[in-house]
């Protein structure tokens, strides 16, 4: 039976010739990841179980990024739990303050994921690594504990939806606009339990940073995973970051897809998701009212890469951010932070009136470092705009690309990056 790209990777990881949609399987995990919030919970479960030793410490990664540098005493205790566990179990891939970064940017940048891998993470945005032609998906802390103990995870093999891309982006349009467009079109459960497989001539036009952003938000359409085929750009990325030898899989030509969507990248425009769901999208040109804002955030596992910072800085130009707007810039990793300093981006952000933070997930999930008060509005490059996501339950988050978010910072309201002259 013909298989999708996702099904091929799953079959290869459970020792079967084929898997089909609906099959329940136990798969071998190449890498299991957790962060300070979820790994600490997983460790508690692991310690309650019969397991004593991790099946393979080299296949476990822990990244302290959500409430780190520790936001309070309880957060400090969670990190301490992870730190001690990694030391006891001989887990070397433990990334703490100083060399940590936001997990889904850090893992590819450290070369820890390669094409064809099966990766699980106790974080919903683990689906990011599909950009590398890997199967990766978010699971819970108990799944993480089970995988640490046994090296395995249970799955129901998913059906798939295919997105055929053609054309290329116009200026100031990027992967964020593409994925917001898709979620707006299919809804927050439009890909529930399914794979989102991207294909078509347009794929080669997408930079790796855009593919990461698109796969990152596959979960916001309810998907199990998002995945791109491997091409020259993927191989160049993997080589540059010292990843293991790629295992390249392709979807069968006659693989079954439950639905297919064609998207012409050249028709996309700067897009914003309104509160309180990522599916509430409108192109900026469709907005007929002034939406004044109090804060912008540029960063997160969705849009904290060096290219994202460059795109924001390009739109910012020599402008100052608007009076009354607080702009928070968060490079996703230490390396990206250093690179941004080298390129003069950080100086430009600070001269414009932004603050620049060490890598953290903080504001994206309303943890710390940019919490909103009642009635406040933010435009953010992050991934969710649920009730209370960035702070008070009566605050509001609008999701947008780095270019659009930077433009909003300059204008003090929601506008298109094309309206800001550099």
């Amino acid at each position, binding site marked *: 039976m013909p298989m999708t790209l996702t099904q091929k990777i799953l079959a290869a990881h459970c020792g079967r010739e084929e898997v089909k949609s609906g099959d329940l399987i136990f798969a071998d995990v190449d890498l299991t990841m957790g962060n300070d919030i979820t790994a600490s919970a997983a460790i508690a479960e692991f310690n309650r179980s019969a397991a004593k030793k991790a099946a393979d410490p080299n296949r476990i990664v822990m990244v302290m990024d959500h409430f780190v540098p520790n936001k309070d005493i309880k957060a400090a205790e969670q990190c301490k739990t992870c730190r001690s566990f990694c030391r006891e179990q001989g887990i070397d891939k433990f990334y703490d303050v100083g060399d940590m970064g936001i997990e889904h940017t850090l893992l590819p940048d450290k070369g820890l994921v390669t094409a064809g891998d099966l990766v699980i993470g106790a974080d919903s945005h683990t689906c990011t690594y599909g950009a590398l032609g890997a199967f990766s998906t978010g*699971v*819970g802390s108990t799944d993480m504990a089970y995988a640490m*103990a046994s090296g395995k995870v249970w799955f129901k093999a998913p059906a798939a939806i295919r997105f055929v891309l053609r054309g290329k982006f116009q200026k100031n349009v990027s992967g964020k606009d593409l994925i917001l467009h898709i979620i707006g079109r299919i809804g927050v*459960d439009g890909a529930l*339990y399914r794979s989102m497989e991207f294909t078509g001539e347009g794929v080669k036009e997408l930079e790796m940073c855009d593919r990461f952003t698109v796969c990152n938000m596959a979960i916001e359409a309810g998907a199990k995973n998002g995945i791109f085929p491997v091409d020259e750009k993927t191989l160049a990325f993997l080589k540059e970051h010292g990843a293991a030898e790629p295992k390249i899989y392709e979807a069968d030509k006659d693989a079954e897809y439950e639905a297919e969507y064609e998207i012409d990248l050249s028709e996309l425009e700067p897009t914003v998701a309104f509160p309180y*769901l990522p599916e509430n999208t409108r192109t900026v040109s469709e907005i007929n009212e002034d939406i004044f804002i109090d804060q912008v955030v540029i960063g997160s596992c969705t849009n904290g890469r060096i290219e994202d910072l460059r795109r924001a800085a390009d739109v910012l130009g020599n402008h100052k951010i608007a009076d009354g707007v607080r702009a928070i810039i968060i490079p996703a990793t230490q390396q990206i932070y250093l690179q941004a300093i080298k390129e003069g981006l950080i100086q430009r952000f600070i001269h414009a009136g932004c603050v620049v933070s060490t890598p953290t997930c903080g504001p994206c999930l309303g943890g710390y470092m940019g919490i909103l008060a009642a009635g406040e509005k933010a435009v953010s490059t992050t991934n969710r705009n649920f*009730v209370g996501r960035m702070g008070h339950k009566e605050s509001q988050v609008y999701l947008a690309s780095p270019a659009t978010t930077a433009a909003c910072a300059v204008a003090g309201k929601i506008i298109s990056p094309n309206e800001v002259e550099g």
Partner: protein
Amino acid sequence: MQFNGKVIRYGDNVDTDVIIPARYLNTSDRAELAKHCMEDIDANFADKVKNGGTIIVAGQNFGCGSSREHAPAAIKAGGVELVIAESFARIFYRNAINIGLPIVELPALCQITEEADEIAADMDSGVIENKTKGKTFAAAPFPPFIQTIIEAGGLLNSLNKEETK
């Protein structure tokens, strides 16, 4: 397993940020998490459970968003015994199974059920009755694979069994 209780009714797309806001995720202590369960969308949640509201009935995509297992854990520790929804977000679905929070997908029942209706659920036979409305529905059984996890009392208990074989 049999459950009898009053319904706490929610709509579509109840996300994990409202089930348990991230500002409380500096602990995985379940009793502590339970204190804040649903507080951003339903300030009376704890009182409703106290008054017999032990069954949540919701719309589509219940538990969407984050992978935080703290969400089903907070619901369970908060005293809810069963969640019935039109559909569940996938990570919430597996987390609920893995930690042993009973869940059922049953759109037909959800569509006629209102706040404070009385429900009687027999998980063994899959027969679930909305007593207030006088209607009975049959839930599809879990595949044997998942039943094994549930019967073991969660995923890690099933691991313990394998280890001791």
